[in-house]
C-alpha cells in the first residue's frame, strides 16, 4: 500500500474527495505485470517451447485457472474449497460429452465409442442429447458448476457451516461425484472417463497447430479471468469479502448477509473451475474420475497455498510451479510425489500462510527483528 499520509490534525476534506493519485511506478505496476504476463504466455512461450512442452503448459494453465478461483474463495473469502474437483469435473464432462458426440457424428455414428462397447441400449441417454448442441455444451461448462455451487452454498452458508466442516463437506462431495461417475460405466465411461477425444469444434486435435491454438485459448482465458479476479479483489465487494473472512459476525451486525457474500465468491470460483475443466479436455484429451476426485481436489488448492493464496499472482504461479514439479518428479519417483504434496501443503499452511508471495516480507521482518542495525534500511 502506498499512501500519502495526510498531515495529522484536522484536514479539511471536501465531500467527494478522489484518492490522491498513486506514484507513477505504483500506478503502472499492475497493468505492467499483466502485460508482461501476456507477453510471456502468448508471445515468448509459443516461440521457445516445443509442441510437447507447450501442451504440458496448457495443462498447467488449466490448473492455474482453478487457482484463480481458489485465490478468490480461499485467499480472500477464507473458504477452504477442497472440492473444486467437482466443478472442474462438471465443466470437463460437459465439454467432453459434446466433443465425444461431435467425434461420433464425424464417423456417422449416433453414439460415442464407449457407449457402443458398454452401453445397454442403442439410444443416447436423454441427458446427453442437449450436449450435441455446441452452444448449450459451452454454456453448461460454466453454468452447471455455478448452479451446483449456488445450490450447495445456499444451504451450507445459510446453516453457517464453515472452517474445517466446510472443507470436509466439499471434499466429501468431490469423493461422491467421482464414485458416482465410476458407477455409471454405460453413460459416463466409468473409471476410464471420456477419452480419446479427436476434434475440437471441427479442428483436429491431432494436429500440432490446433494444439497450439488450444494453448493460446487457455492462456487468453487465464489472463482474462485474472483481470476479472483482480477487479473483484480491489472492488468494494473484495473489501467486504475480506471483512467476512476476518469477522463474519461483525459483518452481519452491519446489515449484510455474509452467506450471500460468501456465496458469490464460491459460485464464481466454481465457474472458473468449470471453465478450467472444459479447457483441460481439448488440451489433454481426457477427463476421468481420477482427475477430479479427492487427490486432485487437494492438488488444486496446494498450488495456491504454496504460491500465496491471498495473492492472485502468487496463486497462479504457485499452481503452475506445483503442477510442473509434479509432472517432473512423479515421472522419476511416482510414490514420493504424494508425500511431497502433503508436506508442501502442511508447510505452506502451517508456516507460511501467505505462501511464497509473502516470503520477501516475512524474511525482511525476521531480519529486522533479529538485527536491529538493519532497521529502516529497506
Amino acid at each position, binding site marked *: 500500500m502506498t499512501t500519502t499520509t*495526510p498531515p*495529522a490534525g484536522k484536514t479539511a*476534506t471536501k465531500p*467527494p474527495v478522489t484518492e490522491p493519485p498513486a506514484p507513477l511506478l505504483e500506478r503502472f505496476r499492475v497493468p505492467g505485470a499483466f502485460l508482461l504476463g501476456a507477453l510471456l504466455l502468448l508471445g515468448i512461450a509459443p516461440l521457445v517451447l516445443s509442441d510437447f512442452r507447450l501442451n504440458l503448459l496448457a495443462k498447467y494453465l488449466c490448473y492455474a485457472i482453478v487457482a484463480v478461483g481458489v485465490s478468490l474463495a480461499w485467499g480472500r473469502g477464507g473458504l477452504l474449497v477442497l472440492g473444486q474437483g467437482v466443478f472442474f469435473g462438471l465443466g470437463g464432462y460437459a465439454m467432453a460429452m459434446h466433443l465425444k458426440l461431435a467425434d461420433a457424428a464425424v464417423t456417422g455414428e449416433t453414439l460415442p465409442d464407449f457407449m457402443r462397447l458398454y452401453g445397454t441400449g442403442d439410444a443416447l441417454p436423454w441427458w446427453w442429447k442437449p450436449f450435441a448442441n455446441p452452444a448449450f455444451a459451452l454454456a453448461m461448462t460454466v453454468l452447471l458448476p455455478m448452479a451446483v455451487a449456488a445450490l450447495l452454498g445456499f444451504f451450507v452458508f445459510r446453516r453457517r457451516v464453515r472452517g474445517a466442516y466446510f472443507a470436509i463437506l466439499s471434499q466429501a462431495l468431490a469423493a461422491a461425484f467421482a464414485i458416482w461417475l465410476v458407477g455409471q460405466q454405460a453413460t459416463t465411461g466409468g473409471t476410464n472417463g471420456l477419452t480419446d477425444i479427436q476434434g475440437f469444434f471441427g479442428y483436429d486435435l491431432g494436429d500440432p497447430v490446433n494444439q497450439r491454438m488450444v494453448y493460446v485459448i487457455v492462456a487468453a482465458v487465464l489472463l482474462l479471468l485474472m483481470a476479472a479476479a483482480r477487479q473483484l479483489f480491489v472492488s*468494494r465487494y473484495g473489501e467486504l469479502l475480506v*471483512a467476512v473472512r476476518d*469477522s463474519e459476525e461483525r459483518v452481519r451486525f*452491519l*446489515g449484510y448477509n455474509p452467506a450471500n457474500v460468501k456465496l458469490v465468491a464460491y459460485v464464481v470460483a466454481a465457474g472458473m473451475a468449470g471453465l478450467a475443466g472444459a479447457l483441460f479436455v481439448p488440451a489433454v484429451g481426457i477427463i476421468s474420475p481420477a482427475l477430479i476426485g479427492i487427490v486432485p481436489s487437494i492438488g488444486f488448492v496446494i498450488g495456491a497455498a504454496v504460491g500465496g493464496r491471498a495473492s492472485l499472482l502468487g496463486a497462479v504461479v504457485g499452481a503452475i510451479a506445483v503442477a510442473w514439479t509434479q509432472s517432473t518428479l512423479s515421472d522419476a519417483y511416482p510414490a514420493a510425489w504424494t508425500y511431497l504434496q502433503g508436506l508442501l501443503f502442511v508447510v505452506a499452511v502451517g508456516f507460511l500462510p501467505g505462501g511464497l508471495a509473502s516470503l520477501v516480507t516475512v524474511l525482511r521482518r525476521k531480519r529486522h527483528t533479529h538485527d536491529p542495525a538493519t532497521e529502516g534500511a529497506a
Partner: protein
Amino acid sequence: MSGEGLTVRGLRVTFDGFTAVDGVDLDILPGDLRFLIGPNGAGKTTLVDAVTGLVRASGSVRFGGEELLGRPVHRVARLGIGRTFQTATVFEELTVLQNLDIAAGAGRGPLTMLRRRKGVPEEVTRALETTGLTALRDRPAGVLAHGQKQWLEIGMLLVKDVRLLLLDEPVAGMSHDEREATGRLLRRISGDRTVVVIEHDMDFMRSFARSVSVLHAGKVLSEGSVAEVQADARVQEVYLGRASEPEAQAAAVPVPEEA
C-alpha cells in the same frame, strides 16, 4: 433523527432451563443516553443480544413501530439498530477508511459493489471527523490503540445512520483520558440518536448517563436518573451497596414500576 424510542415488553430469554432475562420491560425515549448497569450475570448483554436478534427471545421489542423479535441479525441491523461488542471487533486487515466504507455500504447495489471505491463517501468523512480518526484513515485498523478501535466501531455505526446504538462496555480497558473522550463522543451522538450503554464503570456512568436502568437476576430492579437510582436501597444492596454512603440507605425510594 429518531422519532421513536425502544419499547421492550415482557422480554424473556432462556438457555437450557436457565432464565437469563426474566420479563424485562424497558422504555427508552428517543435521544436518551441510557446506561444499563447490574452485577455480572444480570442479563445485560443477553438483553442486547435479544434485541439485536442474536439469541431467541419471547415477549416484544419494538423500535420505530417495528417488532424486532424473530428477525435475523442482518435485518434488525437494517432497521437502523447497531451494536458493539465487549471486545472491539474491527476488520484488522482493512484500513480505517475501508472499515467505515463497508459499514456504510449495506444496501449498496451489485454494480456499486463490483466497482472500486472512488473517493470518500460523505457519511464516512463525517464519521471520521466525529470520532477524531481522520488522520488515521489509511492505517490498518489492526494497529489502532484500544480506544481508537472502540471509536472506530462507534464510527462504523454512525456511517449508516443508525438510530439506536447498543454499546457493550465501550470504555472497558480504556485510559482515563480515553474514557473522557468516549463520554463526550457519546454525548455528541445521542440526542440525534438513542444510545444504550452497558457499563460496569460507575464513575463513567455518573459522569455521562442521562438515565439508568439497573438489572439484577434478569429483571429490572430500578430505573430513573443517576441520582434516583443511586438513592434506591435495593440497588445499593445488590450492586452499589457494599461501598455506598450511609445517608442514602435511609431514603428508600420506591422503585417506579415500569411506565
